[in-house]
């Protein structure tokens, strides 16, 4: 275990607070109260105890297994490299500019040309857009479509929950019945009834962001944002991107403004437009999240064209696992809506037996249809 030695003759507090800052810069959730906890904890084990400092810092600054590796890096950089300047920065992910919808031609020049025809023209334009393939849109059309996502229906599938709720009939609610008797000073009143409540069923979106899906990634993430944004009622939507690796973008998408949310997602996903290893990322999802409970009883929607570089056997095996835990598996393939499409790629052939639905997903209209399928699930 490393020995903690001060890089420069500074006070231990300075040294530790600097370390906490460096950890924050590396993306750890370091807040002021965690800094305090770090100081308290290290004071107890003693800063001259390198291993103790390491564990104390780890217990106070980390809160998920993903943090541990980053913490190790920062710790090593901060306490070892006395000579090195403060470079314990985050491993800057390759800058990935999102294909922003709003750049290029601006909106007003466009609507300007449409003006003479008035509302009718705009309406029919929206109607045409609804059925256009997202991948073939121009920048201004994409901007228009982006505003349409604000009215995309949000599915809210339900399941029976363990909670009970008062109802006119069902089973006898002894608790409430007795409580009413008590209100009447023990005088018997009528019976109270209850039944199982319903709760939102979890929806898990797995979005393929590999090169072959790149034209659709923006629209699909907008859809994911629209579905997961908090509106009326509680929602339980989790979003992952799949490329060469699996990335959880649920937190990143959790902000009201779609542009901000997409930019934040762009920052956390390291593998835009890379290769695909569908089978492996699906395995990673099931190992780390799915089987533990995230996919259990959930509606799992996979957005992918099924172009698998690796063998299709692994993919089929993982889909079988997914099917075994999920409530419903929906596969959305952008190419399905195109004329002459046949599900013949080996990836799609492999997954087909394990899907409840195979849907198209290339236009706004198909997204609406998808919302309906998920809502009914």
């Amino acid at each position: 275990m490393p020995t903690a030695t001060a890089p420069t003759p500074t006070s231990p507090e300075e040294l530790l607070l600097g370390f906490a800052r460096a950890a924050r810069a590396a993306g750890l959730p370091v807040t002021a109260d965690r800094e305090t906890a770090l100081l308290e904890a290290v004071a107890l084990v003693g800063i001259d105890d390198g291993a103790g400092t390491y564990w104390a810092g780890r217990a106070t600054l980390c809160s998920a297994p993903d943090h541990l590796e980053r913490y190790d890096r920062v710790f090593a950089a901060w306490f070892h490299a006395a000579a090195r300047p403060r470079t314990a920065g985050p491993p800057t992910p390759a800058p990935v500019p999102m294909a922003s919808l709003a750049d290029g031609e601006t909106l007003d020049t466009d609507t300007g040309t449409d003006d003479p025809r008035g509302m009718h023209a705009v309406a029919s334009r929206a109607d045409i857009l609804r059925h256009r393939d997202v991948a073939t849109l121009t920048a201004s059309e994409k901007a228009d479509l982006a505003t349409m996502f604000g009215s995309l229906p949000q599915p809210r599938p339900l399941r029976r929950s363990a909670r009970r709720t008062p109802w006119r009939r069902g089973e006898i609610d002894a608790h409430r019945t007795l409580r009413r008797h008590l209100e009447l000073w023990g005088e018997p009143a009528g019976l109270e009834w209850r039944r199982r409540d319903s709760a939102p069923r979890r929806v898990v979106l797995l979005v393929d962001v590999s090169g072959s899906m790149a034209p659709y990634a923006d629209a699909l993430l907008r859809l994911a944002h629209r579905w997961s944004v908090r509106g009326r009622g509680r929602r339980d939507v989790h979003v992952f991107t799949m490329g060469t690796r699996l990335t959880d973008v649920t937190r990143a998408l959790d902000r009201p403004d779609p542009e901000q949310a997409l930019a934040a997602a762009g920052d956390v996903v390291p593998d835009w437009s890379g290769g695909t290893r569908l089978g492996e990322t699906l395995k990673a999802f099931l190992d780390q999240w799915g089987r533990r409970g995230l996919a259990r009883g959930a509606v799992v929607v996979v957005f992918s064209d099924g172009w698998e570089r690796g063998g299709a056997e692994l993919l089929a095996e993982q889909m079988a696992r997914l099917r075994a835990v999920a409530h419903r598996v929906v596969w959305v393939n952008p190419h399905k809506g195109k004329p002459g499409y046949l599900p013949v790629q080996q990836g799609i052939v492999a997954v087909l037996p394990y899907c409840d639905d195979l849907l198209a997903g290339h236009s706004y209209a198909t997204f609406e249809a998808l919302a309906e399928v998920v809502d009914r699930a």
Partner: protein
Amino acid sequence: MEPSSGEVAWSPTSVAEVAEALGRTGYLTDDALATVAFLALRLGRPLLLEGEPGTGKTTLAEALAEALDVPLVRMQCYEGIDASQALYDWDFPRQILHLRALETVARAAGGDDQAADPTDVEKSLYDERFLLARPVLRSLRESPVVLLVDEIDRADDEFEAFLLEVLSTYQVSIPELGTIRAATPPVVVLTSNRTRELHDALKRRCLYHWIDHPGLERELAIVRSRAPEVPAALAAQVVRMTQELRTRGDLLKPPGVAETLDWARALDALGSVDLDVETAAATLGAAIKYHDDAERVRASLARILGG
């Protein structure tokens, strides 16, 4: 160090002391876990443990309770758990019985000069004896105790928020009775299997530790201390086998320490002194809980045991 009852929860002076006290209960820790447990005890913060199933998260709470010589109050979380199952509830049937009894006594006594004061009656209804203390309240009232909140990830978000409130102040208020505050804050251990991400607010309150599967030597030491009846040679074989199974990476659910112990005990119960392909295949169910995994392991048993 001998923790004496009644005083402030044991506050150890060094990490080694914690490790030793836990070791005496049969729970072997590594430096990391001992340090974190030491900090949790000294700082009075809840300890949030995550890790694969079967790595001893729950057992640590039991060992802590034993080492501190205080009771363990366990709260198993599940979906839909709410404050009335975690905190307290009034015993309605007994309250009604009490009311009826009062009424009968009053009637038997006859005269209306005996009529009880309604406020007194009300007060007698919300007496401590009609209070059903659930785990959290119990831990506050009976502290010093170790409160184990098991599988917190199974509970809903709302429950997490409620727990956060209790864990930050170590007090709850019951409208009819007043505020109940822990004399000494209980030692709180939360475990999570990461079926969902916990809220940052709750995590910030806690010391976090990820428990990994132990290495070969420590796992062997654990088996020797937890299941001393198993012959040393057999224990070593079983541990080596499970370590091997964990590193393969193609199993849905690699065996944890709990499974290693089960397996060692199962083999011992069969009277085997040596792990061979036949007995291993017969007792595999103690360590491997998935049919697909079992098939895979069976197919390669000879190779693993041979090599």
